[in-house]
């Protein structure tokens, strides 16, 4: 049978094209740039991402459309996440610039890899086919394996990236196995076709088993307990801007795939797999928070906090109810709101950690003592991000928690809401411990921490967005509520 070439709607895939071309351009340009001008790769990449963002914006208002033989869809959901990935990409670029330039790391290669991984996120937002989803997740992960190992001379970086690689490959294999089973049972790789087929077949054990494999595969990507072991070591060993990228872009990519599969392909048999998510959510948030309590290293603290935050998002998956579309919809919206806000606040916290450690500082929380007296703006910004992660006003993080909470109660899963509430209190302890150190303890030196304008801008944008989102949550909730998966 000859393969017919599918019709391509070029406008719809224009963001991906712009980003892919930029990535190639950066790689080629790097070959010709002299050593002391390698940093030009960063403005090039930034221009590319701005171009991508422009392409995304030009698509706003388009009707939900399929292209590439129904494997690729443009809808509000895809647009929301493409926009979010672009914003994350820009902030990561801003915090990477000084770090990679000062350290004489492989600047061209780094920006190329980062753009590729980001491209994976964009593809994931639109992927509506098992094969495309798998390609997207690999496009997100494979560059990340290399990025994590960029600090070649540090054994910790090597160890972390090797763990990341092994876990990543294993999880891909498990996921792929699950996907092949699904294809075997349903005869389709397209998401909607799979849903229809499953609705006919019902919750056969083989389907539940294959869903389980897919979930396990994604659980590695989003660092859900008990598949989280790689995350803290990898984050600690990787260059910190890469850790920031991994804990936001890469993780969100995983969540996007999971959202598409769980809310669109498999909701019919949700009764069978919902308990898996309930267990995962409880384990992830509780273990993440409890271990975070004991961390002395800010990146490890953020790693465990990020694990716990994944746990809150997983709660939304444990609420899907095929009998009640309203409940499922609310769970879905709450997950979107949480992911969007999480991306900004987590990135903000990482940025502040990178900014502090840049000159003379360190990653040890003890060294944050009295930061407020040395650099009030940096301390206030970091405190703002941590307060947001803790879910306390006046930052948008409060809405993120509240929306999941609301969805859980709406679905009448009270125990999960209660576990989440308790976890929020535990978590506030370690976030506050950092705040306490910065504001209440006396400083050991009087050195002012200099923060480059680029980083100030990155953190300022994130902080402003979080405050604005707190005062007028409609900014985010409106987008999320309209981002229905059709």
């Amino acid at each position, binding site marked *: 049978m000859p393969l017919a070439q599918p019709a391509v709607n070029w406008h719809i895939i224009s963001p991906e094209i712009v980003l892919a071309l930029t990535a190639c351009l950066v790689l080629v340009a790097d070959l010709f740039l002299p050593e002391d001008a390698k940093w030009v790769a960063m403005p090039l990449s930034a221009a590319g991402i701005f171009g991508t963002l422009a392409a995304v914006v030009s698509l706003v208002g388009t009707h939900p459309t399929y292209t590439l033989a129904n494997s690729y869809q443009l809808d509000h959901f895809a647009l929301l996440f493409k926009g979010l990935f672009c914003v994350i990409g820009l902030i990561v670029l801003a915090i990477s610039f000084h770090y990679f330039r000062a350290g004489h790391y492989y600047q061209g290669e780094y920006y190329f890899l980062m753009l590729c991984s980001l491209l994976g996120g964009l593809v994931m937002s639109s992927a509506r086919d098992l094969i495309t989803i798998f390609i997207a997740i690999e496009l997100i992960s494979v560059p990340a394996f290399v990025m994590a190992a960029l600090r070649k001379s540090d054994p910790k970086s090597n160890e972390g990236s090797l763990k990341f690689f092994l876990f990543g490959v294993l999880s891909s294999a498990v996921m792929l196995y699950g996907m092949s089973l699904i294809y075997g049972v349903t005869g389709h790789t397209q998401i909607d076709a799979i849903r229809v087929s499953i609705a006919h077949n019902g919750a056969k054990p083989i389907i539940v088993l294959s869903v389980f494999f897919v979930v396990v595969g994604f659980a590695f990507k989003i660092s859900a307990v008990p598949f989280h072991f790689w995350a803290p070591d990898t984050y600690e060993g990787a260059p910190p801007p890469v850790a920031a990228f991994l804990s936001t872009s890469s993780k969100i990519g995983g969540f996007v795939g999971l959202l598409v599969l769980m809310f669109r392909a498999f909701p019919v048999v949700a009764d069978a797999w919902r308990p898996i998510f309930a267990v995962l959510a409880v384990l992830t948030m509780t273990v993440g928070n409890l271990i975070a309590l004991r961390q002395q290293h800010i990146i490890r603290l953020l790693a465990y906090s990020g694990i716990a935050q994944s746990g809150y998002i997983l709660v939304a998956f444990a609420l899907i109810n095929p009998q009640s579309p309203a409940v499922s919809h609310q769970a879905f919206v709450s997950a979107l709101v949480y992911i969007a806000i999480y991306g900004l606040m987590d990135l903000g916290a990482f940025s502040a950690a990178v900014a502090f450690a840049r000159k003379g500082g360190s990653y040890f929380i003890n060294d944050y003592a009295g930061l407020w007296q040395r650099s009030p703006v940096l301390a206030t910004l970091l405190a703002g991000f941590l307060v947001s992660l803790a879910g306390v*006003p006046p930052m948008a993080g*409060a809405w993120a928690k509240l929306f999941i909470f609301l969805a859980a109660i709406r679905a009448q899963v009270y125990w999960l*809401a209660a576990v989440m509430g308790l976890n929020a209190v535990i978590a506030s302890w370690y976030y506050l411990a950092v705040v306490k150190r910065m504001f209440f303890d006396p400083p050991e030196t009087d050195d002012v921490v200099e923060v480059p304008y680029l980083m100030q801008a990155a953190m300022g944008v994130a902080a402003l967005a979080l405050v604005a989102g707190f005062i007028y949550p*409609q900014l985010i909730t409106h987008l999320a509520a309209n981002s229905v998966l059709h």
Partner: protein
Amino acid sequence: MEWFQNGWGVTLATFLPMVGVAAMLFIPPAQDRLIKLVGTIFAGLTLLVGIVLLFQFDYGSAGTLQLGTNLDWIPQIGSRYHVGVDGISLPLLELSVLVCFLCTIYLWWHVPAPGKIKALLSLVLLLETGMNGSFVALDLILFFVFWELVLVPMYFMIGIWGGPRRQYAAVKFFLYTLFGSIFMLLGFLAIYFKSGATTFDMVTLRAQAAQGGALGSTLFQNLTFLGLFLGFAIKVPMWPFHTWLPDAHTEAPTIGSVLLAAILLKMGTYGFIRIAIPLLPQAAHDFAPLIGILAVIAIIYGALCCFAQSDLKRLIAFSSVGHMGFVMLGISTLTSQGINGAIFGMVAHGLITGMLFFLVGSIHERYHTREISDLGGVLQQIPRFGTLLTYTAIASLGLPGLAGFWGEMLALLGAYHPAIGLSPVLFRILMVGAGIGTVLTAGYFLWMLQRVNMGRVPEKFAAPGRIFDVQRLEWFAWTPLLVLIIVAGLYPKMILSVTNGAVQALVVHVGAALHAGSTVALH
């Protein structure tokens, strides 16, 4: 002024301080005087808005919500920006804008270590937005947001400008309150989902509660009430949830203690009157005896603790536990006398204990100690200051003619005839217990005065000129409180005439809801 009457005045009173914070961001930290000036101006403007609101308010219909604004806010969950005032919230809002303004004035005289006036004033203003917002919010989510907004500034205020054990006190305050507010939020959500109205609007939910039985089984209502109870009771604080209070009060800087005592604690009692009782009248009725018992334990326990304190500030802190006990006793009677008394008691406690904390702060400034045993002869050495201390302490112990008297009096009266359905025997026993509490209160305050004001001036302070009498800025900051204490004492109608309409409406509402509930149960 039309926009002002159409409800924007209340919004202005809430957010003007926040504008002040934004303005302050642009002043370099070294410009001390300019920062103080801007802070005072914004607090003053807010006070001015509060005074204008007093004239706009229609006292004839104090029972209905006025000067309100109601806008779309988060339609996805049915939460609206709904604010307004009635006879219950107006006095508390006025108290808040007044005390915040006085605090900014007090800061001209003394900035606690480690300085940083810009940050401190920003926190005071941020706190004011949170507190004012809590008193005017008529949407549960909006209320929750303002309620939580108060947490962060106060945490920093205690943790940075506080005493030696500030870190412990700040974290304890934060976690304790956060713990309570999560259960409170659970309660709000339970009401939201069970009511079926998909609204967080307090007015709508209250109207629904009046129909009786809308919120499901008695067990469900009681569990929901328990959630709200935990949130509010920790804030009040009621015995046995009070343990954060002595630490927070003692360690906080002077203005922190003043704001905590005068306003923050009122948010808890206000929550009972505004939310817990009207939305869950049946459960409130079931819980009333328990609340009454805890309140009387607080009164007696607080008084006994005061006898044991050697630190003057800690003594005042524990006296707050007792005074708030009277407020809660008044609320638990569910009578108009009791609740009127409770609101009066809230305002009076705000004025008096706020003043006491100012005085203790100033004693610490002068003597560098708060140990009662180190002090003595204050009245002899600095007579004006000593007189103020006597005056305020006597007001606090409830002398007739001063503000402290009416709240306690009305609470006791209410307890004699509690609402229908509540055991008169129990409440009369509680009344006797609370009565004994007043005697104990008088005892420890007089004993304190005897040790601090009377006696001989200790050697180390005896050198002439070292200890100065009341300063001009202190007079500025304190005179309004001193005057209001006696005015409210001599003319209690000033406050009661404002509150009464709203309280009557509340009591009628609770009665009607109970009646409707029992009718529903019969059918």
